[in-house]
């Protein structure tokens, strides 16, 4: 596929309500490849964009399971197999005493996979991104709300899409360079 001449079109809105409405309308118009940008999480936005990703909880579950199994296995292998040490006649496999460390490694690995999983699924770190080329986009981390319809969308047309976005009553519409 040839690379389109621009990355997409970016419309700026003043309130979260306008952004959510605009996202719903764009969706109804048939646009699929788009993203919305806001200075704080807006629950309705993911829903308006029909965005569902259930992979992260699974990643965390697997990370936690790995941590728990690995922690317990480490304790079992070191205390029973590799370095059996008689401490006051207590059993080598003293499982109740192994629980605290197992718990800690479970939490540690689950937390690490939550953070690293979130960053990886989000494709971060990505210090350079085309939307940053729009000067007004600096306000996306302050008080403005943006909707970007990307040029890879099959319905995208530089003129028609622009006209559509302007009908949504935004503060501004700008082209996003690559």
């Amino acid at each position, binding site marked *: 596929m040839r690379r389109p001449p621009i990355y997409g079109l970016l419309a700026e809105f003043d309130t979260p309500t306008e952004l959510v409405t605009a996202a719903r309308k764009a969706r109804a118009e048939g646009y699929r490849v788009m993203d919305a940008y806001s200075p704080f999480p807006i629950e309705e936005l993911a829903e308006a964009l029909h965005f569902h990703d259930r992979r992260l909880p699974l990643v965390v579950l697997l990370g936690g399971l790995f941590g728990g199994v690995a922690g317990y296995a480490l304790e079992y292998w070191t205390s029973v197999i590799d370095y059996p040490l*008689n401490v006051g006649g207590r059993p080598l496999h003293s499982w109740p005493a192994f629980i605290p460390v197992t718990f800690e490694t479970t939490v540690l690995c689950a937390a690490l996979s939550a953070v690293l999983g979130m960053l990886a699924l989000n494709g971060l*770190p990505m210090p*350079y991104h085309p939307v940053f080329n729009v000067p007004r986009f*600096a306000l996306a981390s302050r008080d403005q709300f943006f909707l970007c319809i990307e040029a890879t969308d099959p319905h995208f047309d530089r003129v028609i899409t622009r006209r559509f976005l302007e009908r949504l009553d935004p503060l501004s519409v700008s082209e996003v360079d690559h």
Partner: protein
Amino acid sequence: MPQVFHRSTNTFSRVSIFGALFFIAGATYGLALINRSAYVTEAGVAREQPIQFSHRHHAGELGIDCRYCHTTVERTASAGMPATQTCMNCHAQIWVESPMLEPVRASYRTDTSIRWARVHDLPDYVYFNHSIHVQKGIGCATCHGRVDRMNLTWQEASLQMEWCLDCHRAPERYVRPRAEVFNMAWEPPSNQLEVGRELVHEYKIQSLTDCYTCHR
């Protein structure tokens, strides 16, 4: 304009994060290697001595028994270093003019000990006893290597605790018949584990991994 970074920083940041992971793993592995290397343990490094004494010549080519010089190895903790008198037993009659042996003769004349450079030096918190190892069938060469092939002597093993425990946790892998302890050329038989287990039983070799076995 919020675009702070150049396009290439995307690749750069990901590569550096992944790179850091590999770098840390590699550095950790490298440290473990250095810790076990001759640089730290001094294993395999021939030690300079005040006199160029060759075990290869005396023990190997001439076939002098270990115990001729290291007299207390079967009875005490220390194997014992020979007095200058032991050297002079022979060197009063052979190589009497050799300039190489002048320090030995000087030591004998002035009644001062030769200051050998110690090759095997365990930390002071480790209690080690030669006699028990010899009595239980651990050969000289098991720890000291083929001393009969060394010109200047070096330390064969790392002397790290993992090396001690390697045998203490499973002595049947290294034990040999008592008669072969001083035989430098003894090779373990193909059924060493089997023979070893019998010897462990016969010599009543006990569990040796308590802390206080060595740290008293």
